């Protein structure tokens, strides 16, 4: 049988303590863990684009937030009439994918900084729409989103049940992304990132591939958003704001662009920072700024990336495979 790849092994290993979390709420608070899992999934979705395809999107909040709004609105209005929660989540994913298609078809026509600027501009328009469209609740937002019953049986308003559901979705999402990255499609994406002209000359329809990658990333970000709306039972304007897009960028960067577990580590760190620094007083902005500066200057590969690099140096005498990380590859890639 094929041996289990390292990232999946790590997932299995971490599942054991993760399953025990609800039994020890004083050590790790389950709702906090759920929030981390949602943002980790969001960061993984973002990483699919930036880490493996090389496309920097400044507008991922549009997918995250609008999926949350869709799921929230459907659950608030229709869960009492028997709308299953799975359908609401699927609707959220569908919304995110549709917005992803819209923004993607427009953005992929350009590359590099222009691509990023288009995603920025279009997500600002998505924010404007969120303010103007009535049912999003404007800046009051949506509260009290019912969690519903999973498969009509399991009551998700019980925090423990919701926790296991979130954990399952996260694990599936992680595996799905892992599968995508290591599939032939994933190889094409990496080829695109490393040397687009050569990929074109080899006959790949690069635009279509980029669009699919973008839509996949959007769909998964939407899943994360829908899940978060159910976990916290909230959806608000800040979910579609530029600050959320920069937050997920920070999470991915801090953890390690292009690594499997980096975004998860980054998400855990940033969510924890926000939560625990909150009780220190008004220093959160400064600390996040300093984190950006330090990370970009000295820990470009992110925590997981630096860890992998360190392991690599230890094994450098033996046969090894080159580490795929964004920092070094872009140094070799010609052009700006």
């Amino acid at each position, binding site marked *: 049988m094929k041996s289990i790849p390292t990232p999946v092994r790590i997932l299995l290993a971490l599942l054991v303590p993760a399953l025990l979390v609800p039994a020890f709420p004083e050590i790790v608070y389950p709702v906090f863990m759920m929030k981390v899992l949602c943002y980790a999934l969001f960061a993984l979705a973002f990483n699919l684009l930036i880490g493996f395809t090389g496309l*920097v999107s400044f507008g991922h909040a549009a997918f995250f937030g609008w999926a949350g709004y869709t799921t929230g609105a459907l659950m608030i209005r229709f869960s009492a009439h028997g709308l299953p929660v799975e359908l609401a989540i699927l609707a959220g994913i569908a919304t995110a994918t549709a917005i992803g298609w819209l923004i993607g078809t*427009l953005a992929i*026509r*350009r590359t*590099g*900084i*222009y691509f990023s*600027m*288009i995603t*920025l*501009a*279009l997500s*600002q*328009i998505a924010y*404007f729409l969120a303010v*103007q469209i009535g049912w999003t609740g404007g800046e009051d937002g949506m509260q009290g989103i019912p969690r519903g019953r999973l498969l009509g049986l399991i009551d998700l308003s019980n925090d423990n049940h919701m926790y296991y559901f979130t954990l399952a979705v996260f694990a599936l999402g992680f595996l799905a992304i892992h599968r995508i990255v290591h599939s032939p499609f994933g190889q094409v994406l990496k080829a695109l990132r490393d040397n687009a002209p050569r990929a074109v000359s080899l006959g790949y329809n690069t635009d279509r591939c980029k669009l699919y990658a973008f839509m996949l990333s959007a769909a998964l970000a939407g899943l994360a958003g829908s899940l978060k709306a159910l976990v916290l039972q909230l959806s608000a304007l800040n979910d579609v704001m530029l600050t959320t897009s*920069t937050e997920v*960028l920070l999470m991915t*960067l801090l953890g390690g662009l292009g690594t499997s577990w980096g975004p998860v580590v980054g998400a855990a760190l940033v969510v924890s920072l926000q939560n625990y620094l909150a009780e220190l007083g*008004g*220093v959160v*902005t*400064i600390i*996040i*700024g*300093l*984190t*950006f*500066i330090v*990370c*970009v*200057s000295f820990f*470009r590969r992110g925590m997981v990336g630096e860890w992998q690099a360190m392991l690599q140096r230890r094994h450098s005498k033996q046969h090894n495979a080159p580490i795929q990380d*964004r*920092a070094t590859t*872009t*140094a070799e890639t010609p052009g*700006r």
Partner: protein
Amino acid sequence: MFDISMQALAAQLLVGLINGCFYAMLSMGLAIIFGLLNIINFAHGAQFMVAAFLAWIGFAQLPLLLGPEFKVNFWAALVLAPLLVGGLGILLEKTLLKRLYHLDHLYGLLLTFGVALVLEGAFRHFYGISGVSYDPPALLQGGVDLGFMFLPVYRGFVVVASLLICVVTWYLFEKTRLGALLRAGTENPKLLQAFGVNIPLMITLTYGFGVALAGIAGVMAAPLMQINPLMGSNLLNIVFAVVVIGGLGSILGAIATGLALGLLEGLTKVFYPEASTVVVFVIMALVLLLRPAGMFGKEK
């Protein structure tokens, strides 16, 4: 919606134009930094804010600390604050930014973004979020009745001064030997270095100059709006759009687009004011799709 008199419309267009001149001046620094140095300076708004605060500190706080002879008036601030801010920019460039040149744009962007957060957080910590008030110098107070509107003298000054600065800068970069040297240096640094030109120094000074331009804009903005830590980041959105639409790296593009967007924003405020911030992004998206290098830029 359309029941607006010609007089009123003229007034609104003038207001839009005044804002446009201001955007043009602020975007120029950003255009220079990106065009010549390929750095996306997300700290531009924060540097703008720091200069405005410095002007106020010089006027209101310095005399309290050192004595009334040390009161820095507007005209002195217009020279000193940009120098200080430009100097700080050079410091940033020499210590941190330099190390990122060989990498993707993204890292320079993130670094400067982090710097912006730190600056904003620090100033909020010391001065609060409501900010402080700064008046125009005595010479420029009051207003002129133009018939269709009452134009504050200071706003007229802003138009004149920013256009002057724009023209001078454009001339410097496009028509002088120094400018030619700069442009050559970014296209082919190795060759120029072979001719004995100190490229790193050139880059450092250019970054400093771009930041100093933000500084001048900051001092000029101080009498127009409440000086608060977020004044720069609110403007940065528009300024970025201006630079991208005008063509990343084209000074003329930044000037022309700044004026055009100011006018467009003014018109939107008349007919559909809720959209006056988002219209800029709509135009940006359109331009990027039709002419990706911007109206005046060259795709790199």
